């Protein structure tokens, strides 16, 4: 299956002035190509959460997005500290976000579970001190 749209974004560390720009841009593309609104919403929530995670926890990173006629694949990677216990991190309510981040309204420990709920396939590769890569797939039908 040939890719119709490929996009790459840089996610800067701890910069909330542009955090969410990549997901906002992808949301626009999906709406423009006529993807159903509920799928657009699921995709943008999953991508925004992953993007914010890279901003907060990963010292920033990159987003690579491929869209074909059937699906979107979003790969968000960072070279941050990695996740020591992924099973624990996936639990709703568990968070390692510092107070400064919690004061902004993040750090509820729902990021990863929101990504899981809103994606059709979620794969996370992580190792301590080697960073984290999140693979999100959402099918259009």
């Amino acid at each position, binding site marked *: 299956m040939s890719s119709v749209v490929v996009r790459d974004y840089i996610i800067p560390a701890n910069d*909330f*002035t542009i*955090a*969410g720009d990549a*997901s*906002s841009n992808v*949301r626009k593309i999906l709406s423009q190509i006529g993807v159903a*609104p509920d799928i657009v*919403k699921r995709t*943008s*929530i999953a991508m*925004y*959460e992953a993007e*914010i995670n890279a901003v907060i926890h990963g010292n920033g990173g990159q987003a690579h997005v491929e869209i074909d006629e059937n699906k979107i694949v979003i790969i968000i990677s960072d070279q941050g500290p990695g996740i020591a216990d992924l099973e624990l991190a996936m639990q709703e309510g568990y968070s390692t976000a510092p107070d400064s981040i919690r004061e*902004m*309204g*993040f750090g*509820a420990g*729902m*990021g990863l579970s*929101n990504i899981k*709920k809103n994606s059709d396939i979620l794969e996370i590769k992580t190792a301590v001190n080697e960073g984290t890569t999140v693979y999100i797939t959402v099918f259009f039908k």
Partner: protein
Amino acid sequence: MTINELSQKLDLKIITKTEKNIEKEVTGVYSCDLLSHAMAKINEGDVWITVHTNLNVVAVASLTDCACVLIPENIEIDNQTIERASEKDVMLLASEKSAALLCYEIFKLIKD
């Protein structure tokens, strides 16, 4: 009920410079200050009440297609947030009332 009608009935201040979505239909109300939780739960057409006034509020409002964001208790709103909301056509409103009172009043108006 539209945002315009709601703002008149409850004496809400319109903060954003854009009024593009002022005739948008309000169908519900949701109050939450945890952004990920709000993002998971807000329904399209909800008035989202939050005490946060940072830039991320605009992103969450935009992603969830809520009708508008309502800031309670006259909490000061960052200029950067007002600018971004205006750019993204996200309606920001404010009130001197508490979130609980606003939920009650909006719910009553929608129910009627």
